[in-house]
């Protein structure tokens, strides 16, 4: 029986979709989720780019289907590592996962959908996150949008807002060389949402490159420029400091004219990147064949036909455990990982 069971580590969009696809194929998925409910970071999001769909709509659709399919869910449960030993699909193959206190959860295959961590903006000390009151992250803004309370710390409306791209991405200084991919479009989306709330505000966006890789993204960017009057300035903000009237002065180079620039703003929004999950290292160490990319994300077997496979038979990946991804990409990978896991079990060991 346990060989038909598949453990899905993580109950975010990728994990939920993986479980749904497995259940639809007649297999027995069990989602092991660290938090007290399903949804991952989607729970904290307000609207999704580029369609401005409510995050809750996607979330409830997935959780509703999970409930309907009767997928087994273990909440408040941490996974310590992949379990090895007898009873797997073949000798030496993973036979489940190890939970807290060495408890074992037997399974025929494992799908790792454990997600990412949000970059801690305090590490970019020069931006003064948690030092100055009105420096926020894009995560804070989603939360504020969700509560319908976007305002400065004193409750007033900002008159000038600056978004700072690439906070914790493309930055050797904080050991995050990779591009987090979704932050550009997130910042564009949020700038437009803030424009709706603050029609009179000046809104600036400081970027190094604007990476609009998805369908409708470039169009949204153009709309942000032309209709929402977001001023995009190409240059990385070097520092934030307090002004005498309680605002924040930022400095950057306007690289398109080759001159330094400074301005004071009421609100700074740091577009924080996706960081490899802290648990990746421990997970990779628990099983031969699992390895980390230099970025700290889990390394898939290859980036083309094996993007949801690991180097270990019976262990599959889905979602942001392997790299920054959009919700749509995570869900696609969830379905694909489920299919690969099912094939694996059917073929009785071969990958």
């Amino acid at each position, binding site marked *: 029986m346990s060989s038909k069971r598949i453990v899905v580590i993580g109950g975010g969009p990728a994990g939920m979709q993986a479980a749904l696809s497995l259940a639809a194929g007649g297999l027995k998925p069990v989602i092991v989720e660290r938090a007290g409910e399903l949804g991952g970071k989607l729970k904290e999001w307000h609207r999704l780019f580029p369609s401005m769909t409510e995050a809750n709509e996607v979330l409830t659709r997935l959780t509703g289907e999970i409930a309907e399919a009767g997928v087994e869910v273990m909440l408040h449960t941490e996974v310590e590592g992949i379990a090895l030993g007898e009873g797997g699909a073949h000798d030496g193959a993973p036979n489940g996962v190890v939970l807290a206190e060495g408890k074992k959860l037997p399974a025929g295959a494992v799908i790792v959908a454990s997600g990412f961590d949000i970059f801690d903006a305090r590490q970019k000390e020069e931006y003064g996150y948690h*030092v100055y009151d009105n420096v926020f992250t894009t995560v804070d803004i989603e939360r504020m949008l969700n509560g319908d309370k976007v305002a400065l710390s004193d409750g007033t409306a900002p008159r000038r807002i600056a978004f700072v791209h690439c906070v914790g991405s493309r930055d050797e200084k904080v050991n995050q060389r990779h591009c987090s991919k979704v932050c550009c479009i997130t910042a564009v989306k949020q700038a437009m949402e803030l424009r709706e709330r603050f029609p009179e505000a000046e809104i600036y966006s400081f970027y190094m490159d604007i990476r609009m890789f998805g369908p409708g993204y470039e169009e949204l960017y153009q709309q942000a420029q032309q209709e929402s009057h977001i001023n995009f300035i190409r240059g990385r903000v070097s520092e934030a*400091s307090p*002004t005498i009237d309680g605002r924040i002065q930022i400095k950057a180079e306007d690289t398109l004219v080759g001159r330094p620039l400074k301005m004071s703003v009421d609100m700074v929004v740091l577009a924080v990147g996706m960081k490899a999950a802290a648990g990746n290292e421990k997970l990779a160490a628990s099983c031969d064949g699992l390895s980390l990319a230099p970025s700290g994300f889990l390394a898939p077997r290859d980036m083309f036909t094996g993007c949801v496979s690991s180097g270990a038979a019976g262990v599959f990946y889905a979602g942001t455990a392997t790299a920054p991804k959009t919700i749509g990409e995570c869900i696609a990978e969830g379905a694909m990982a489920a299919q690969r896991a099912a094939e694996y079990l059917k073929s009785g060991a071969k990958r």
Partner: protein
Amino acid sequence: MKRSSWKEYEKEIADDHYYYARSCIRQNFFPGSETTFLRIMREALGKDIYDDPRHTSCTGIGYHSDIVPLDTTMAVVARQFALMTEAGYENIAISCITSFGLYTEILETWHEFPETEARARENLFKATGREFRKPANIAHTSDIVFHNREVIAAQAVRKLVNAETGAPLNIVEHIGCHYAKIFPKSGIGGSEFPYVLAGMVEEWGGRVVDYPERRHCCGFGFRNYIVQANRGFSIANSRKKLESMAPYKPDMMVANCPGCAMFLDKWQYAIAEMENVTYGADGRGIPVLTYEEMAGLVLGYDPWDMGMQMHQVDTEQVLQKMGVRYDPAAKFLGRAGKFIGAPAAAAVNTFSGDRIYRIKT
């Protein structure tokens, strides 16, 4: 501002038995500050510190001006370590920020590239026959004063407050670039929110001014002021800071770098003479103190004993605010009561209502 992040950048500072490495230029521009440091160490804190007449310049100015090659600089620094070793000390207390940065940089280089250490040892031995042990602890002297700020506060004769109103003095702190911008971990509070001087100011009752250009360089920059034609952008950097801090009406500045203290002080004179602009709230310049002078005033030392008559911007305004009793007539009297000469009047020290820097809004 929440200054809690400085605790992530604390470092080991030795408690006693220091070998003192003096600065070249401080002895000219703020000649009493190093004497005051030794007095604080010995009298107020009861520490053992060895002031070695044999040690020399670290070559920092020459090194940063591309005049002295790195190998030479390493050999000179190796010699200071040899003198320290011979004197039986292993904790080095460095008076100059650039020396501190240079010693730190060299120790780091030796660590990363051991062959450079071997070469420095060989060069030193060939040239002088000396050998050395690397210091067990390296600290800037402002680190040591910071380390003992509570002990000094306990002995305080007065605080950094306006004696009449009891209000804390508004104090601009300025950290030398070579203190923590080379290695953030080598400075208390790191490079973005350094706490070494802010900690003293807060401990002794003052209020730290956080102004937009707090992190900006004073403009010293070695080559930039050494060559006369380049001084325009050296002075422009000090002006940028002065314009940024003026709206906060600071009562004084305090710096931990020889060059910064000198330039923030003396460029005010130059700007006043060139453009007829001053930055103090009362139409005069803003006094610039060293942290030893600031500590000395707290401990009740006589300002003229500390060499405060050598400042370009008169310090009397701060002394009066703090309620320091001093003898105005003794300002320019030397050791044996002999008159040492007084400077000519300067625009930066003469009140003029129309000269105040107009705060642009």
